[in-house]
């Protein structure tokens, strides 16, 4: 285990970020249940150690691509509650001016290239970001988040092939939460997921996605190596989603058992277990952690209230942002 003294700040930030994700999702769920949120959303609760363990190994210059289950990545990469809740509610002050919503949420200024409603849709984007880094001699690294279900998309193999051939600084992070929608992973994935990456000559790892320190430790190493041009890498993170596939997926007995959910929630919760460790190590008392959580909950409540009363974009915005402007001066010869 790392040197706890010097790392106290890091540990506390990781804990905080995990709680921030959990609290965000609790509020999102509440907004749905009280019919205040338009549409549906996919919650990240239970998987916090994955996003946080990885994103804490990244700088603001590093990029990520996210998924339909994107709130966790967004928070972990440094986003604010206010603009996130505004986005969730389709308000003008949202990160995407309300045009994206939950499935396209992103704090673009922190290197989040966007949640994506196409399963696997961002695999090319992440790889392309890494190609850009290599071409421009920049040492940033891109992490591509996707689920176990997304490994069925052929695009992954196309871009892994090119990433391997060109040694791109990209890390493929497969969040294996055991399910894609209402189907168990073993029913939709033949063979071995990591072996698939290895077959392309890509070093692949499996890690406990409920252990934020383990995830962070591996991520630190791989990010450092990717920066030096030793990429790409593939990581399979074993995790679990607590809620249904989306907020509306309430009765899920037909595809997964209550006992299974209970075991993960009660024995493997990434926040509870990390909290225990922090206390045991004398880094933070249970009270400290409780106080932190309370403060975060209060912040979330304020953000939700703000977002609920924030204004919608003006109707005139409907046909704005279809095309980015091009400076007319650029379009003159020689310019």
């Amino acid at each position, binding site marked *: 285990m790392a040197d706890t003294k010097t790392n106290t700040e890091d540990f506390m930030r990781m804990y905080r970020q995990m709680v921030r994700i959990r609290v965000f999702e609790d509020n999102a769920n509440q907004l749905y249940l009280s019919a205040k949120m*338009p*549409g*549906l959303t996919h919650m990240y609760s239970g998987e916090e150690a994955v996003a946080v363990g990885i994103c804490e190994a990244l700088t603001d210059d590093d990029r990520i691509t996210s998924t339909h289950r994107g709130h966790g990545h967004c928070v972990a990469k440094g986003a604010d509650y206010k603009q996130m809740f505004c986005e969730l509610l*389709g*308000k003008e002050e949202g990160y*995407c*001016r*309300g*045009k*994206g*919503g*939950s*499935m*396209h949420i992103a704090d673009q200024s922190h290197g989040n290239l966007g949640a*994506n*409603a*196409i*399963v*696997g*849709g961002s695999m090319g984007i992440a790889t392309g970001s890494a190609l850009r880094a290599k071409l421009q001699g920049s040492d940033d690294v891109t992490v591509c988040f996707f689920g176990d*279900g*997304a490994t*069925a*998309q*052929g695009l992954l193999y196309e871009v892994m092939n090119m990433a391997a051939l060109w040694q791109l600084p990209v890390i493929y992070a497969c969040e294996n939460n055991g399910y*894609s*929608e*209402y*189907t168990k992973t073993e*029913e*939709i*994935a033949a063979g071995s997921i990591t072996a698939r990456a290895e077959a392309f000559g890509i070093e692949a790892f499996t890690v406990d996605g409920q252990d934020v320190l383990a995830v962070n430790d591996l991520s630190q190493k791989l990010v450092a190596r990717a920066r030096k041009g030793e990429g790409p890498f593939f990581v399979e993170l074993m995790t679990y989603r607590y809620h249904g596939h989306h907020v509306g997926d309430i009765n899920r007995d*037909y*595809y997964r058992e209550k006992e299974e959910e209970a075991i993960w929630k009660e024995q493997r919760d990434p926040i509870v277990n990390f909290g225990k460790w922090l206390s045991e190590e004398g880094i933070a008392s249970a009270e400290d952690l409780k106080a932190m959580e309370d403060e975060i909950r209060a912040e979330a409540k304020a953000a939700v209230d703000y977002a609920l009363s924030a204004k*919608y*974009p003006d*109707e005139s*915005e*409907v*046909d704005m942002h*279809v095309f980015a402007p091009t400076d007319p001066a650029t379009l003159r010869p020689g310019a």
Partner: protein
Amino acid sequence: MRHITLSQAVNEAIAEEMRRDLTTFLIGEDVAEAGTPFKVLAGLVEEFGPERVIDTPIAEPGFMGIAVGAALTGSRPIVDLMFGDFLYLIMDQLCNQAAKAYYMSGGKLNVPLVLRTNLGATRRSAAQHSQSLHALVAHIPGLKVAMPSSAYEAKGLMKTAIRDNNPVVILEDKLMYNDKAPVPEEEYLIPFGEAHVKRAGTDITLIATSSMVQVCEAAAETLAAEGISAEVIDPRTLVPLDEATLIESAKKTSRVIVVDEGHQSYGITGEIAGRINEKAFYHLDAPVLRMGAMDVPVPFSPALEDITVPTPEGVTENARKLMSGEMIHAA
């Protein structure tokens, strides 16, 4: 007559045809136990078993290609594509392979396959889960394209599609799954290429597809109260298109609006308007008006999304203008 939902109608149609023809099978993501996210296929796996109601991994190009191969060799697959927006992923298998096999083989190999998917915005699902992409497939020779406007059409068109010897794309409006309509107990099929006059009228023709039929019926109701008699016609299939019925109505009323939920530009309203203008030109009192969805990606925000699609008010407004002889774009 009993009233059932569009969802039940689709389910019944597929069940009846699967009972009738053992070479049919369903394939797609979460079609079995889950019965799709919209629950449209609920119960089918219990009756037909997992061999004929096949859950796939999330690999749209893959299972579409597999369906084409099965169809080429003697099965009749019904492919479930969870969202119409995923059409982009399967275009190669659909348009380069399925649509062309019969022609390229000189009539030796055919692809009896149904692709069912959906369209329609205003469900707060944002730009990648709200598109109405029927124009893309209607443009490709070799594909038939059907768009049911109620439970009645959903059942009758689906049954015809399953029996057709060609690839057929059926697009259902995902906001209409719970809408009820009278559907006979007795079996019936709706032939392709026969438009349906949903409401007869004499002053103006409203041609509408899918959920836009409801929109136009509502507009017609308002117009009727104002003494304007609107005829509402649902082409039901874009390919083959029942041009004759549309043109006949245009000649009768001399005024036409075409209403569709696909993006307006380079979409299907241009085709329909183009044909009517060409073939009923000398009977028209005014230009054929086109009302498609705005040419913008579908925004998430409810404040924006609702204004991207045609509404009864918008149709009514345009109909009034046409009727009042206002010289639209006359400058």
